[in-house]
């Protein structure tokens, strides 16, 4: 059976520690923009932890919300690309083909989640920081759009490994860098087509919602709403 990679973000578990953010930078060769460029709004974080305040002192509440590419089934970014750089893979990934990208940035405008990032400059690393670069992942060059890939290099590596060992790739053999680092297990990655997988089980939880689900983008990322102590123990 074909795989369908998906993720569950449990907002009740997320602590806002941002380990996922650094993990993503390290795994995916995301360049550091520097203060000046960051001030111009060009810092790249394929995954970010959004923070929303609710209420005022003395009763403020905070809502953390990790946002990454939702890998939509009906992705608004895909049809608008004139060169097919942004397209849907057979496994349901919302893929960005860097070498095919001519940089119209239409996809980034069309994306309601603002999870696409553009290489305004060629990325630079102060020597020898470049030695850290992951050879399994392209270093994107100037004029190219990039975004969360669900760590496609890990998917590919696992698929090739499974194929070499002449067996089926199973859920749980690998995970994305962000999910791997997530201490409170707020991020769960896996195969939605495997009904026994943790991600499939959680995705059908009654706490599940889709981010901006009303837009009909059909994301493959499911958010699990925060619970309350009262509901869980006294409801």
């Amino acid at each position, binding site marked *: 059976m074909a795989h369908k990679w998906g993720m569950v973000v449990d907002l009740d578990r997320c602590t806002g520690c*941002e380990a996922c953010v650094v993990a993503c930078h390290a795994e995916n060769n995301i360049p550091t923009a520097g203060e000046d460029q960051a001030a111009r709004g060009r810092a790249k974080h394929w995954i970010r932890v959004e923070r*929303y305040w609710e209420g005022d*002192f003395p009763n403020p509440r905070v809502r953390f919300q990790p946002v990454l590419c939702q890998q939509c089934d009906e992705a608004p970014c895909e049809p608008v690309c004139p060169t097919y750089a942004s397209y849907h893979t057979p496994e349901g990934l919302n893929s960005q083909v860097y070498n095919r990208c001519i940089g119209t940035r239409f996809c980034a405008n069309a994306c309601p989640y603002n999870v696409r990032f553009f290489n305004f400059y060629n990325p630079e690393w102060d020597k020898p920081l470049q030695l850290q670069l992951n050879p399994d992942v392209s270093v994107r060059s100037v004029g190219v759009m990039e975004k969360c890939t669900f760590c496609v290099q890990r998917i590919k590596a696992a698929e090739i490994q499974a194929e070499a060992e002449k067996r089926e790739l199973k859920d749980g053999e690998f995970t994305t860098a962000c999910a791997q680092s997530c201490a409170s297990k707020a991020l769960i990655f896996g195969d939605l087509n495997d009904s026994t997988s943790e991600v499939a089980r959680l995705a059908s939880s009654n706490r599940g919602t889709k981010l901006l689900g009303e837009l009909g983008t059909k994301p493959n990322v499911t958010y699990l709403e925060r619970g309350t102590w009262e509901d869980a123990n006294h409801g």
Partner: protein
Amino acid sequence: MERRDFIKISALSGVMATLEGCRSAEKQLIRFVPEEELIPGIATIKPSVCTVCSAGCGLLVRVMQGEAEVVRHGQQGLIKMGLAKKLEGNPQHPVNQGKLCARGQASLQLLYHPDRITHPIKRIGPRGSGEFQAISWDDALKEVSAHLGTLQASGSANSLAFLSRPLSGQRGELITKFLKTYGAPPPGWYQPFDEAVLRQANLLSFGHAALPTFDLASADYVICFGADFLGTWNSPVAQSIGYGEMRQGRPGRRAKLVQIEARMSQTGANADEWIACRPGMEGVLALGIAHIILAEKLAPQGAGSRPGPLIAGWQEGLPGYAPEAVEKQTGVSAVVIKRLAHELTQSGSAVAMIGGPPLAHTNGLFNALAVNALESLVDKQSVLSFTPQVGDAAPVQASLAALHGLSAQPPQMLLLYEANPVFSAPPSARVREALAKIPYIVSFGSFIDETSAQADLILPDHAALESWVDNVAESGSSRAVASLAPPAVLPLHDTRPMADVLLGLGRQLGGEVAKALPWATYDAMLRAAFVPLRTRPGSIDVKTDDDFWDAAQTQGGWWSSTSTTPPGAAVKRAPLSAASPEFAGAAADFPFYFLPYVSQSFGDGSLAHLPWLQELPDVLTSAMWSSWVEINPKTGDRLGIKQGDLVEIASQQGTVRAAAVLSPGIAPDMVAMPVGQGHENFTRFASGRGANPLSILAPLTEQETGSLAWAATRVKIARAGGPEQARLVLFAGGMSGFPHEEQPR
């Protein structure tokens, strides 16, 4: 003009030939024969130990072949070598169980930092000027051993001092032994935000002078007084793992987290209920809750029998802590206090914990003992416990006294390792002045920071991934943990591990020192310390010492299979009665409590030089590359301070300036600043960026332990300029938005 731009122009004006020439010059760098055989394109996973905080998480390092520019035999060239590509948690490690925090993952950049000191250097300019020149290892070591020899020969061996951040494991042992046999006083351990108060309280309350371990996965109710246990305090990864479980890991059973603090920390942001309490009054609040529990007999008979009596009036049911009286002192309503008492006792298993700011008051110990008393009253299932220790040594404890010693009696020679007191000590410690009086300072630092800039000689240490690393976990696991790992990668630069240098110096000194430190290299010393663990029941079951040693290296350490902690020592002490916290500065002149807090990105400031962490948006403010001060929006309105304005914060000790962040998560009579920025001299990424809140702290200390009361300073604030002067870089909402982004749904 930047090099990049130069290239652009040159290309524009058609000077292609020259540039093609330059490029081939780079190509002509000679290539050295690789020192290890690796298959290109295939990753090997090697264990290591995280050294950036005291939690001591186990690491897995992804190593792949790459080509690095190195210097060998004085010649620059390229070499194919294994390069660390990514740090992950070690799934077998009992503390972090395969997970790793942001700071731990970013510590990879310690290895590849462009401003690492790549070879020994000797000062040529005046102290602090940062002018150094290269010196060979031989000359450098000769110089140091000559100094050590002369000092010992002249009978002033006790005038050698060693200042380091607290090191658990054999590194600390090595330094201690070296100094002891040399005839010098024991090493001074220093780091800001030490845990002396809590360890003392835990010793009194539970008999363990250690940080506690929490089994949050079995908790139903957590009441936390100030501890940022999900972000920076104690063993955050282990605690976050437990937190995830207590929230959603048990179907139908979800724990409640109540956070009590005056400034919302990352942990507070996750709390189900966040309660602002007047700073320094957390102990009173805890006893107010305990009062209800005792009065209404909500706890089982005999609960709290050990830590309770340390509080005056416990036997009588804490008569002075009636909810109404407590409400007056703490600002927390009596209704809430009563409700908390009931919720705590009605839940299956509850825990009360304390950490961070409540301990950093003059009455810190009282606050800790009070919360410990409440804890023992409500914690029916031993959510709080203590990690069994491998040895019987007490955890190495940092203290301000180490610095006071330096300034009271300046030694003749100072060895510095991974401590940066010039940056992190309060101004009253007068560290800079003390260092100026020391004739000879040697640093083992990998970077030039404010303190190592004062050194006469710098003998750069290997990065942790290039060294043998070990750690003994003080907390975070129910089992005894001794982590260990061989170097994950070969050294990139002409550096040498501090431990080996020290062993070498010991050999040269001869005598007692050489006798006490007979090992040629640090790994031999580690082996000697580790091999005796073979006979204890634990993660490695092998027959020979060699096998044990190999297995420990591949596993990333050794951990016991039992989880019983020996009962703590009984320490007697007269009951303590409530003491109000003292603050430096009168409320009339300095109307705001000032809270410097451990930064989510930089810890105590020692990681401010890592670009990944500089660009990590602070999760509550979304600030990057910046320093800021959190102010309640109402206070901001009153003082005419807007988001992003430059604000001057003045205490009796001095002033700092930072950008204002208006945050609803802070009491109107408090301002808070993250620690970490404000480095004068700490690599290209951190130098001259933002302000250091530690530099305006008052010298108040906790009354019993002498630990710095870093939350006991009062300040006044005023607008000092507009956003263009403050340069606050936010990831969220661009420049125009108010921080209260409200979600559209």
